[in-house]
């Protein structure tokens, strides 16, 4: 389909469903049914089976028309991770049951993957699911779950067979967060806030119909989900002095009373590194335009984590006594923010929150392993857990 053709479709749709007079929820359902939700999805499932490259144009056209949106920020995990996985591995019933309310923002999703004992080693997770009739009974503890307190459903990975090697004993489920066995507790972070949650699962019952993929196929399905997460990396172009560099450069310019040659040289080193990272990202995007995403994105994430942490640390130093004050909003009060916003926050918040950049979404240590092994071809780590039953692995 050409851009012109899809533009015609949108215009036609908008003519039939005038923004001003259509109830927002009805508008979204109509858009889904017209295949103008995620156009690369198949017909009947929110899409038209056309190129993904047409999606930005469609979004722009709807936005320009003032159409209601599906509040994508609130349902990032649903849209970015659950939906493509359900599309790829779901039965026709599952796709028909879940995709439309997900896209319309009626059902919010969260992700129940990480556990206190399974962070970098996700495949070592211990949450158990046991089949009881045509339901699975799930017990365990999940952590680092953002949005769990607002979520209606979760994508969940649990262990269904402890007697086989760990990657083979996992199964993937769609879990109703309103089940009485689900308890969500805010997980307070070093910033004082609770951006994430812990989720305790006690005899949660999941119908077998809500299993995604085969029993034992959970690791494969989970990796499909995580790859969708990683597609974003190296994504958007950044202007020079974008990101945290711009924020800290502004701190420098507004605090001339604290200038020293040493602070200036450190800031300039970070200016140079940020600009180099920006150019590296640009080159990576040029590479992606002619080929496939590779593990080089891991190197970008490493770089940004390191730069962010040093920039935010320097920011506190160059602010003088201001750097010792945490006067952002409610200070240390425990709140539950809906999303992360670095630039709009206090310097102390940024310093503390940036510490998570080298942990979340793959620690810098794991990413260095990935670069060393997959980019440079160096040998993998010695593994003691590969060919033994999960239950035999020391923990």
């Amino acid at each position, binding site marked *: 389909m050409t851009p012109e053709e899809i533009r015609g479709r949108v215009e036609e749709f908008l003519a039939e469903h005038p923004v001003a007079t259509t109830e927002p929820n009805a508008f979204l359902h109509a858009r889904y049914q017209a295949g103008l939700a995620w156009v690369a999805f198949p017909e009947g499932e929110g899409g038209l089976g056309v190129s993904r490259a047409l999606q930005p144009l469609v979004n722009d056209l709807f936005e320009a028309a003032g159409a209601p949106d599906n509040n994508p920020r609130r349902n990032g995990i649903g849209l970015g991770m659950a939906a493509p996985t359900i599309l790829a591995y779901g039965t026709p019933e599952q796709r028909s049951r879940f995709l439309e309310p997900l896209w319309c923002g009626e059902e919010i999703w969260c992700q129940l993957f*990480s556990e*206190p004992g*399974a*962070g*970098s*080693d996700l495949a*070592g997770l211990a949450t158990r699911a046991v089949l009881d009739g045509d339901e699975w009974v799930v017990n365990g503890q999940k*952590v*680092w779950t953002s949005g769990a307190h607002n979520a209606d459903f979760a994508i969940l990975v649990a262990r269904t067979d402890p007697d086989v090697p760990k990657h083979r004993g996992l199964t993937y489920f769609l879990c109703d967060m309103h089940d009485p066995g689900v308890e969500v507790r805010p*997980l*307070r*972070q*070093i910033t*004082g806030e609770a951006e994430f949650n812990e989720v305790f699962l006690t005899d949660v019952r999941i119908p077998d119909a809500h299993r995604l993929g085969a029993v034992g196929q959970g690791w494969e399905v989970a990796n499909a989900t995580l790859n969708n997460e990683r597609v974003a990396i190296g994504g958007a172009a950044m202007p020079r002095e974008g990101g945290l560099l711009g924020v800290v450069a502004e701190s420098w310019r507004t605090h001339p009373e604290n200038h*020293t040659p*040493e*602070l200036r040289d450190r800031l300039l080193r970070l200016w140079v590194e940020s600009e180099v990272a920006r150019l590296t990202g640009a080159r990576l995007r040029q590479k992606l335009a002619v080929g496939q995403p590779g593990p080089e994105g891991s190197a970008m994430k490493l770089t940004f984590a390191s730069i962010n*942490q040093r920039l935010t*640390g320097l920011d*506190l*130093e160059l602010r*003088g*006594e*201001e*750097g*010792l*004050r*945490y*006067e952002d909003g409610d*200070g*240390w*009060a*425990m709140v539950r923010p809906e999303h992360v916003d670095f630039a709009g926050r206090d310097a*102390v918040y940024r*310093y*503390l929150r940036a*510490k*998570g950049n*080298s*942990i979340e979404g793959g*620690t*810098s*240590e794991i990413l*260095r392993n990935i670069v060393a092994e997959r980019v440079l071809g160096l040998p993998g*780590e*010695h*593994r*003691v*857990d590969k060919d*033994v039953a999960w239950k035999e*692995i*020391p*923990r």
Partner: protein
Amino acid sequence: MSGLEVELLDNELDADLRATVRSFLSERCDPTQVVKAYDGDSSLTPVLWKGLAAELGLAGLLVPESYGGAGASAREAAVVLEELGRSVAPVPFLTSAVVATSVLLAAPTEKGVELLGGLAAGERTAALVVPLTATTAQPLEPGETTVRSVAGALEADTLLVPVATPAGVEVRAVSADQATITPVSSLDMTRQLADVRLDPAAGEVVVAADHGADGVRSGLLAGAALMASEQVGVAQWCLTTTVDYLKVRRQFGRIVGGYQALKHRLADLYTSVEGAGAAARYAAGALALGDPEETEIATHVAAAYCGDLAVTAAEEAVQLHGGIGMTWEHPAHLYLKRAKADQIAYGLPGLHRDRLGALVDI
């Protein structure tokens, strides 16, 4: 320029003092209590401070016996500060028993001597009214004025105020009752800052104008010299706690502390922490021996090194704990916040290097 002979290890008295303080803090200064300061509950501070200052008699370590003190030295204060750092204890030892006390000791007036006696006995607590970032006297003009980001003011009954006079900077003691002390939501709530509004004219002269500027300067230098020991304590806790955790934490079926990249980082951290310990103890020793030029050099070395090192140690602790180190529940963040605030207090490491350069012809 070959340095002084300083005992860099604990002697028997040091070891006893350390054991006493450590045992006191392990009983009364639990991290689950300390963290409450971040939610506005500072009730731990007066209890701890009373115990340390009066019961254990540590407030008077730097005060000569003739003024009613213990007549000990900066060496002993350094041992205490290592332990306070190791527990991120929320007490005004550094601000009152080191900085304010050292300001007074420069040349106390009769009123100053009286105050020193009260401080040494643990009956009074003082704070120098300068921003925590100060390294030199920033004298106030008489008249109502506000000083931002003062450390120790919330715990003090007596505020020491550097005042500009035609004869020089004099230091006045103003009762906390006569000042407006507004708590500040601080990076480090275990050493919470306050904005202090007062009229210095309300106070009595405790250091006269001919010695005030030097007194404030030497008080702040002593603060930097001994804060290095606090930073060592912070760093030691971070190293030890991380190593202990990585000896039990497993991922991929292996003890995480057995992964070589982490072993090497911890080996480097150990090396730096050992160095920091030697540098901080040397600075305390030089201060104790009273050699002014050597004290300055040793202080700048210790402050420059330990200030950055404690931050590195705390940052490594958070990172190497993985997700758990990012949680409020784990105490690592208390050390990260203390380390970062200490790095900025009494002069940034870069400033100490700059001053060092002037002394050693670099």
